[in-house]
């Protein structure tokens, strides 16, 4: 799966050589010529779409592939998430799914010959109530059996790992314990996007940015314009022109239901913003990722020294990514509950991303009632963590025209056949 056909291998040696010769690096990916036909079109140039393209080429030899993005690569959720990865999920299937993702992340820098700066700094989920502690114990017990490094630790050990946390008992939500997962951590999310993009491009995949999809072309279906159930996809219409292809994969987030609607496929998705924020940089003081469910906050410090905060999705369904003042107020209040010593740090920037929520908090992956039209959507708040394994599995799904077992539970048909993903759901979000 290692990168092949690459014109410029990245290495320290290369940096020195080009530094001495004062030459620029060649393009990380080509600016491809426009083509009117491909074997596979992938809509969405985020980590899911690019990983799918990469693995189509790397694992299945399918390289006549186009990835289309309406803006620039990684402009959606891939560039807006808080870049936390972990595998300490609750169900054995969830653990297996995300552990595969974590494996791929672990070797990604070498596989893609681009340093994605995976920082295995440990991941700590705080428990503030006895019921939360019970859930942590449950997760730890499951993880133990799965050979996942994950255990419940007490306030003293928490204090050692993250001295900025207030573990005293006189707080409103005292920290009773935490689920500690040393292999979890953070990653440079943009680098993951670029790594897959560069890797896909090197194998011949065309990456078309600023190429918004306006319609999906179908024939033979029951609905208007030959779309809907029973149809066969024939291509897409973009702002730059039509492209024909027998296979179209919807790897978008935020507008997944709109894109699917263009093929006459209805997805059970509502879209909610999830807000995040970052502070000014300060010298390193928070070595692990800290998550508090009760206080609706997760926080980590980047190598650049900024604290990155995220919360849960906004309660109201909207496409508005403007962000709210209330979010920053609640966030700051809760963070100061956890770390009272940082009140003089300043919030530098807030932003929002869109999360496509499904009724069972599980993604929708695989074929649709339109022949040749596939989806990898509905990833809610956890799409980034699953990017590599999703790409790998979707590539197999498309290449073999058969859904791999690992993602079989996520097929769209489950909503009409009553097989909602529950405890069997590999990626069903833990709690």
């Amino acid at each position, binding site marked *: 799966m290692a990168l092949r056909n690459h014109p410029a291998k*990245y*290495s*320290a040696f*290369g*940096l020195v050589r080009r*530094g001495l010769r004062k030459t*620029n*690096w*060649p*393009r*990380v*990916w080509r600016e491809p010529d426009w083509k009117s036909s491909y074997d596979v079109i992938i809509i969405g140039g985020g980590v899911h779409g690019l990983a799918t393209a990469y693995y189509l080429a790397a694992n299945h030899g399918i390289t006549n592939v186009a990835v289309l993005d309406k803006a*620039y*690569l990684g402009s959606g959720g891939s560039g807006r998430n808080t870049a936390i990865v972990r595998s300490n999920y609750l*169900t054995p299937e969830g653990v297996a799914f995300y552990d595969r993702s974590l494996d791929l992340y672990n070797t990604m*820098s070498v596989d893609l*010959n*681009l*340093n994605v700066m995976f920082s295995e700094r440990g991941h700590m989920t705080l428990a503030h*109530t*006895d019921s939360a502690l019970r*859930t942590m*114990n*449950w997760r730890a*017990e499951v993880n133990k*059996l799965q050979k996942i490094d994950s255990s419940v630790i007490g306030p003293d050990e928490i204090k050692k790992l993250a001295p900025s946390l207030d573990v005293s008992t006189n707080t*409103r939500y005292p920290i009773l314990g935490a689920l500690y997962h040393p292999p979890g951590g953070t990653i440079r999310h*943009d680098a993951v996007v*670029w790594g897959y993009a560069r890797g896909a491009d090197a194998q011949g995949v065309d990456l078309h*940015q600023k190429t918004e999809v306006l319609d999906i072309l179908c024939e033979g279906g029951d609905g208007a314009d030959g779309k809907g159930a029973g149809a066969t996809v024939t291509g897409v219409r973009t702002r730059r022109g039509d492209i024909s292809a027998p296979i179209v994969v919807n790897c978008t987030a935020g507008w997944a239901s709109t894109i699917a609607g263009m093929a006459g496929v209805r997805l059970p998705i509502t879209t909610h913003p999830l807000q995040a924020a970052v502070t*000014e*940089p*300060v*010298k*390193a*003081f928070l070595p692990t990722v800290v998550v508090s469910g009760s206080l609706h906050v997760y926080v980590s410090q980047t*190598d650049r*020294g900024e604290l990155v905060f995220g919360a849960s999705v906004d309660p109201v369904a909207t496409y508005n990514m*403007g*962000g709210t*003042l209330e979010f*920053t*107020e609640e966030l*700051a209040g809760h963070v*100061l*509950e956890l*770390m*009272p*010593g940082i*009140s*003089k740090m*300043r*919030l*530098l*920037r*807030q*932003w929002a991303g869109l999360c496509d929520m499904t009724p069972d908090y599980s993604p929708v992956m695989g074929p649709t009632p339109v022949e040749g039209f596939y989806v990898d959507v509905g990833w809610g708040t956890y799409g980034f963590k699953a990017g590599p394994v999703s790409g790998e599995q979707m590539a197999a799904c498309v290449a073999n025209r058969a859904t791999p077992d690992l993602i079989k539970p996520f097929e769209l048909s489950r909503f009409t056949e*009553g097989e*909602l993903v*529950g405890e069997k759901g590999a990626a069903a979000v833990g709690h």
Partner: protein
Amino acid sequence: MKNRLPSRAGEQIDRSTILSFTWNGKKLEGFAGDTIASALVANGVTVLSRSMKYHRPRGLLTADYWDPNATVQVGDEPNVRAAHRRLEDGMVVSAQNVSPSLRFDVKAANGLVGRFLTAGFYYKTFMKPAALWPRYEKILATFAPGGKVDLNTPHGYHDKRYAHPDVVVAGAGPAGLAAAIAAAADGASVMLVEHEHEVGGHLLWGTDDDRATAAALRAEAEAAGVEILTNSTVTGRYEDNWVAIAQRSHPMAVERLIKARAKMLIVAAGTIERPYVFAGNDLPGVMTSGAVQRLIRMYGVKPGTRAVVLAANDSGAAAVAALDDAGVDVARVIGSGDRAALVKATGSSTRIRKVHMGDGTTENCDLLVTAVGWTAPTSLLNMAGDRPVYDPSAARFFPGTPPDNVLATGGITGDGTRDQLIEHGRATGRLAAGRAAVVCHRLQASTARAASVDGAEPSYPADERAALPRAPHPEMFRAATHGIVDYSEDVSSKDLFGAAAEGFDSVELIKRFTTATMGPSQGKLETVNTVAVLAEARGETIAEVGTTVWRPPYAPITLGALGGRVFEPVRVSAIQPWHEANGVTPILAGQWIRPEHYGDPAEEVRNTRTNVGITDVTPLGKLDLQGPDVPKLLSLLYTNKWMQLPVGGVRYGIMCAEDGVVLDDGVTGHLGDDHYLMTTTSSGAATVWNWIEMWLQTERPEWQVHVTPITTGLASINIAGPNSRALLGRLTDDIDLGPEAFAYMQVRTGTIAGIDDCITWRIGFTGELSYEIHVPSQHGLHVWNQLLEHGVDLGVQPFGLEAQRIMRLEKGHFIVGQDTDGLSKAPTTGMIPLLKLDKDDWAGKPEVAWVLDDDYPVVVAVQPTDPTVVPEEACQILRADTIDIVGRITSSRFSPTLGRSICLAQVSQEFSEPGTELTVLLVNGTRTTARVMEHHAHFDPEGTRLRG
């Protein structure tokens, strides 16, 4: 203070007040009114910081809030803007980002290898060997810029303020002041917010006449009743003009957040002067024209001795005039818009020494002043949805079309004389006041309280302002050489060219790859130069490249100000004083503090099972439901049937979410005609209320149901045990407690301990004969005391949550969220008879119907083979001799009643048959066995006690 000029009119400093402070441990002095930076420069300090990556020495550049080189540590506060923060006596100031000291910095060696450390170099190396990356990462992390957090920093005083002004004006330069005055004159209430310490904007460092005008405008604004907030920043504009203001001038708070719902927002943010990109542009002594004017005119500080001035606009000439005033020798003025005129600057590690011209000549100097153009800080307008538009003839971006309730005025919109700016400001103020009056009228007309408003709605004024002129300006972004574009991030134009050549060639990609514009000023200084360099690299126009989206906040705001007071309310019942006076051990349960026990929970269980116990269950969610359609609502939300529940009846029900997962459970009583009381779990109270409102408001708006949450309106007490009837009987005359008159699962309303309207129902969570009484909250403590007083001979004792949990476990009652989880659908509870599939419809029914055919896990009662082993809650149940998980222990206690351990567990159906032997993996890693019981109830499965 060797660089201090003689006193002059209009300066901001008070020379009669001398302030002492330390800089990197050295004692220095400044004047009241100085900024930290002006005092440092007055003392001859030229190097204020070192850069992030190459640790290059940096001096003052813009001498204002946005100065990227003047960020310092002040005591426990990191990242203080030294060119904005006023000096205080005793300040302990130190340079940030130095290793080990500002003068000698070993990391400056990085500068020598800079050609290898191009932007994003870290993406291209350290991949192998993978095992070493964590060490590289630690080294990289030491390059993080910024100051140090002192984890012992006290939270301090942080309050917030709400305001409802007609007009908020962001920026108090001439246009902003004039706008505020005109709006106030037309009757609007106005908040005028100024980022700097004094109003006046650029007039403050202008001519004597400019400063006199600023003073006059200030007086006029004060007289007009404008609220002036200096040293305060409008940090955000959110939906519907929800405006955030960071007030740093509050007498007590370090920073205070003001939240204003402005009917109109006027953005008069002025302009920010752009640095020029050329080789050596970050040498100490290279400054913008605004910086030298500020230093000389506001602080009486001499910025250098011999200057070269690059003057592509009027501000350059003004800087020359200021330098002349200050006695600085102006060696050469390059009065040209030709980007080839200046090539590079060279110097020592502490100061610029020489400027190299395009014509081959050089000039020795210790100061290079650049005046090459302006950036319009359109950030607040962006937040309102506006996208700026580039005008090449003026070499800057201008606002596009903001929404109607946001107006821009002053330098951000164009150029012009002082009088033109003031006139544009006045016209904007009048327009804002006119529009605010319409909004006011509409608000009043639509409030119930003020149904009639005087007069007709004023007409909505159209925007008929004459636009300010745009002065032609050469496009001066970069000389022919490469220099620093983003000072905070140490990103050069060469880095940007390289990144563009590599394919990171859209403005967002180049930002992410090089981190240009991502530093503390968020692009206020750097964005336009970044865009210009990218355009040059791509051979495109600036308009084609476009710009990034500016997000809130406009300027960084402290977490303290945003968080405000730590205000997390605690809920306690009316009986809490008694608990606290009687040795309670409390437990945190969501928002509530509840009694966990009073010393010995096992004894509390024993007494309740033998005599009578009372417990405070006030946190139970309680909803008062009234209206003819309540039965329909109950039938829709509960899985069982509710249409026939008679008045006086109480029923238990389970609620599902739409995915069939158990949402909540509880009992609901039929109190009277069209009147019900619903109880929910304590933690589910808010969820259920929201759930009901969601159904009533969005799905069944035609139903007549009123829902009132009354959880805290009623104090709830459970009286349980064989003597409970006798005890309650002593306190009520009008409720017949006879077993037939008031049977199990019945409700009565009557007088208890002299308190009317107490709701009493007979239920049996503990498994004993028991009554749950709901009394008006203010009488809760009284009734509690009466129960204790009248039950002494009956053996009454209080019991806490722990005893209640033990007793419910002895009875095998599941708890939502403990024995079920976020994936447990209703059949898992084992309450199959309550799932009425023959009922027309209920929330979750299709999913429950589906899952009933499946192999869903089931809650069962379990007893460990060894009665002394109490498995931890969360222990996994395994298929024997494997590590395959088939279930888990969800509740586990030692039963004082049975003298053995008892549990509830969730197991797959294969393991749910009574008598099945389970393998339980204890947390310590050992395995033990347990047996599935026939009934959920470990104790009194027939329920004879509770029905007695």
